[in-house]
């Protein structure tokens, strides 16, 4: 299902945080959190690295390339994970395209 979804995502698409969504580090919980209207997400370590690259100008492909270079992992594998993550957060209103 994730792969099916990622297949329809255009790699030139640029993800950004939705209006009113904030991604920040919380000292009390020692964790990165994603704050949205009436919602809070605590992304796992892998998701945090992806979300740090979401800046409203990097495309999906650029985010994948950056991570592939850093972790010396095949871009296709990373692309599927990143697309699935962002698509999931988009359904929850935290990411917009």
């Amino acid at each position, binding site marked *: 299902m994730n792969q099916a979804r990622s297949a329809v995502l255009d790699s030139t698409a640029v993800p950004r945080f939705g*209006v*009113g969504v904030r991604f920040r580090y919380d000292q009390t*919980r020692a964790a990165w959190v994603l704050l949205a209207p009436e919602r809070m997400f605590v992304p796992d370590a892998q998701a945090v690295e992806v979300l740090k690259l979401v800046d409203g100008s990097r495309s999906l492909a650029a985010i994948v390339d950056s991570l592939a270079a850093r972790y010396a992992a095949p871009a296709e594998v990373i692309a599927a994970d990143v697309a699935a993550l962002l698509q999931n957060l988009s359904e929850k209103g935290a990411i917009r395209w």
Partner: protein
Amino acid sequence: MSPMNAQSQIEPPLGLILELTHRCPLQCPYCSNPLALERAHDELPAAIWLDVLDQAAALGVMQVHFSGGEPTAYQALPRLVARAAHRGMYTNLITSGVTLDRARLARLAEAGLDHVQISFQDVQPDSADRIAGYAGAHARKLAAAARVREAGLALTLNFVVHRHNAQRVPRMIELGEELGAGRIEIAHVQYYGWGLINRAALLPTRAQLDAVTAAVEAGRARLKGKLVIDYVVPDYYARRPKACMGGWARRFINVSPAGRALPCHAAETLPGFEFPSVRDRSLAEIWQRDPAFARFRGTEWMPEPCRSCERRETDWGGCRCQAFALTGDAARTDPACALAPDHELILAAVAERPATPPAFVYRRMERAQPSRTASAVITSK
């Protein structure tokens, strides 16, 4: 287990709800404020709220909800928003929208406000104004919603649904799209306080509820990835209770206009409690050590059938205020649960729903007689 260990297991609160004032231009008959509304001269001064916000950030609060009454009626609101934003907390304004003019909104946006939630009573202006008890309210809300988007702020439309407007939920969702909302709340009336007094006037039929649920599901499917729809069901037709406030004193601290800290906004209806005031106690002390906060936290307090229920950490025993309002005992299982010994109280209320709704009892300061308690209404039937 030592008390130290017990304390260290308490997770920090996620949300702080500030009821800055009970003053409000609207008179909705399902208002979540208590029947005994607090007067302007009892309201906390800004200096205390500012201190509470500093304490909240240090305690680990992530989101601050500025609520009321109508929070924009509180003069120092922009200063409070600025302080919360400065401390890194997410700021949410829960407003009727009728007094949200351009200048006021600009001050709030400049202060760092993240999100505005505007309540709507209906999509049909005459009906909306009648429910709000305020002529012209609906038109003002539409204008305020447009201004929120112009200001670049996130917008939620909140619709409280009941027998008088349930059929228009599809149109409510369309209105959210048209106004550029990122989120819509379709929330059935919760029957405590004013809602309980007006239950016979508001309770939908099962068929109405099913139609609303279908409309919400259709809207969610259609708007996936574009707009989030949150749905709050009425417990009166549910088989299991809702996790009221995400569990007693697990996620939220609510502070009343006069400064009383509560695990939920309706908790003051419960007898035998002395809720602490932020005037003389720190938030950390209240959260970690106050007996009123500890009373129904977790699962230790639970009677059967909750205690051995597999859902005990899902719904946390439902709502304490509803248990009290309907049974007279806040420690009973929420009667909304089909497994509760008192569930017949809910079934009876549904069975007794009148074909013709009675007139609304509007939310008004002068109506709030101490004798007019929720339990008195129940027993007077």
